[in-house]
């Protein structure tokens, strides 16, 4: 199968790259974790959260400004990569200083917090569905209204939601994150001990997933929208970067060849996405290319999406250095704050997207309403992030006071 070969080749190449990179890497087999928090992570995670919020409102003109329209990957890749990075950054240090048991327990506690947040969102979703069921009636949509069927069996549905099998629309990211964190303690231990083996193992799991169609089952049927066995690649790669991988890649990232390849690939992806919106352009895409390329699978983190994220990341890292002066400027603080409280802001974003969609529908929203809702949503996210920071300050838990502790350096995991 052409696809299988393509992924095997991608994985082999990745492992080969690791081999190439290794000799030039720093001598230490357990790379040191940088001491100071990297504000770029908070910044881009914050921006990703805004984009996820905007993308979750289907009829929104502002959607046209989000990255998913101009390439293969979207904000989910950024979110998962940075989550892997920060998880390794925070718990990697904990694991070295206090051992596997303590750091593992902390990771599991974080997974539990995310689970609780997910169930909270599910409750809001149920309220929305119940409202629609009680108020909406239109014979035109008799078939679509079957979506409300599960209200007839709350015993089954709520149980399936509790075991993460039933996941309403737009609520797939947190369950993915939970599974990734549940599996993280042993992966982190391996990353600290033998990083190359950990990354190679992750790539092999990714390839096997593609070849054998592995995924977790969903309810009422089907599989998880974000396949954890595929998306772990990005999470583990992020973690690897945090634990010294990024430093190992410095040479590669500085090379003009990498830059040209990244820019070339982004242009290619941009051109392809344009053919989705302007159909006549489609005839310029050769048949063999479409045959090979499509469908670009989000569920299994298509290698084209992964590569697109890598290209974006390579360019970003090159032009936005760690000590970029703007990172300290007030303009960037709103996004950075949101990125620092990612779990709360993510949940808020999902809720605001629900609410925004209601308002747009009720007002049969013109573009002005859509822009107003998008901006208001982002402002609410920023205000909430600031509020959470304030709470942490008054409770003596601000990120700055905790930078010395091992828990929340670099924002939340």
């Amino acid at each position, binding site marked *: 199968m052409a696809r299988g070969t393509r992924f095997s080749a991608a994985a082999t190449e990745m492992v080969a790259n690791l081999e190439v990179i290794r000799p030039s890497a720093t001598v230490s087999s357990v790379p040191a974790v940088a001491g100071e928090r990297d504000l770029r992570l908070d910044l881009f995670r914050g921006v990703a959260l805004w984009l996820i919020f905007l993308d979750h409102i*289907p*009829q929104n003109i502002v959607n046209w400004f989000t990255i998913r329209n101009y390439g293969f990957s979207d904000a989910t890749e950024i979110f998962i990569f940075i989550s892997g990075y920060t998880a390794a950054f925070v718990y990697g240090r904990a694991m070295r200083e206090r051992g596997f048991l303590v750091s593992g327990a902390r990771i599991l506690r974080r997974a539990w917090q995310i689970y609780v947040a997910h169930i909270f969102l599910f409750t809001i979703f149920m309220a*929305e*569905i119940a409202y*629609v069921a009680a*108020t*909406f*009636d*239109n*014979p*035109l*949509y*008799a*078939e*679509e*209204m*079957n*979506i409300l069927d599960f209200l007839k069996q709350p015993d089954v549905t709520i149980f399936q939601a509790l075991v993460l099998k039933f996941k*309403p*629309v*737009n609520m797939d990211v947190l369950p993915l994150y939970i599974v990734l964190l549940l599996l993280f303690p042993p992966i982190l231990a391996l990353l600290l001990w033998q990083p190359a083996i950990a990354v190679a193992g992750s790539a092999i799991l990714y390839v096997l997933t593609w070849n054998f169609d592995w995924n977790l089952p*969903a*309810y*009422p*049927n*089907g*599989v998880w929208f974000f396949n954890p066995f595929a998306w772990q690649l990005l999470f583990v790669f992020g973690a690897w970067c945090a634990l010294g991988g990024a430093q190992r890649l410095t040479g590669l990232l500085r090379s003009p060849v990498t830059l040209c390849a990244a820019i070339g690939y982004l242009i290619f992806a941009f051109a392809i996405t344009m053919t989705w919106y302007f159909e006549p352009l*489609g005839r310029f895409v050769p048949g063999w290319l*479409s045959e090979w390329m*499509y*469908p670009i*699978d*989000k*569920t299994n983190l298509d290698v084209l999406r992964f590569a697109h994220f890598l290209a974006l990341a390579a360019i970003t890292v090159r032009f936005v250095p760690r000590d970029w002066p703007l990172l300290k400027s007030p303009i960037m603080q709103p996004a950075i704050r949101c990125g620092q409280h990612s779990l709360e802001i993510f949940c808020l974003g999902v809720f605001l*997207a*629900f609410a925004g*969609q209601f308002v747009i*529908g*009720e007002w*049969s929203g013109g573009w002005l309403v859509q822009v107003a809702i998008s901006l208001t949503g982002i402002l609410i996210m920023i205000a909430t992030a600031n509020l959470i920071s304030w709470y942490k300050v008054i409770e003596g838990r601000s990120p700055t006071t905790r930078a010395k502790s091992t828990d929340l350096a670099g924002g939340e995991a």
Partner: protein
Amino acid sequence: MTVFIAMLASFLFAIGAAFAAEECELPVSFLTSDTDLTHAIKEIADQHRLDISVVGTGSSTLPGPDGMKFAYPARLEATLRQRLVGIEIKVTAHVESRQTTAQMAAGLQKILAADKPSVVIWQAGTFDALSGVEPDEFRTSLDDGVDAIDAADADIDLMNMQYSPRTESMLSVGAYADVMRWVAQQRGTLLFDRLAIMRYWNDAGTFDLYSTTKNYDMARSVHDCIGRALASQIINATHLDTDKTQTPR
């Protein structure tokens, strides 16, 4: 006075009818493509008839005992008869609620053998989205169905889901619509992009698809417009339109 009221009423009715004819207005691009309905062209040329089968699920009909009478397959037949004078038109609808595309694909052979159509309008995707069928599996089922229809020497017009703003946040149809677009492109079939067309009508204010009503009027008008739009698409793809008007009438 009565006469005056009757005149006023008939005047208003005439205006209403004129608006009704215009209300399905659509950009030409929704109903034109490079794909021809070759089997239909041949059937019309050789036999002066056009046999169409519609295969679909709940959104291809309306609720109630007379649902089919006002649903788009019947409206399509009426419009084609009106516009293609001298050609015998027969539209046979096979609509069954709660069917996945795999189930419909499995039943196609029987339908094709019975109807012997030159065009099959295949409405799919909604129930698959409702029951969480994997998009990959959905694609395979569509491919199987397209194979069966190809083998029976009929043209295909794939119809995707309805645009339903009220359930949009609960029922994600995007992935299924993408698959249908992809299959249509790969297999060189027509695609009736109902999702985009209804969204266009909603945005243009033709219909307020977000509204809540127990009344059947809007649902019937939407189906009427879909029937007329389908007729225009078929006429465009068989090059039968003499006056080159490509928007629905």
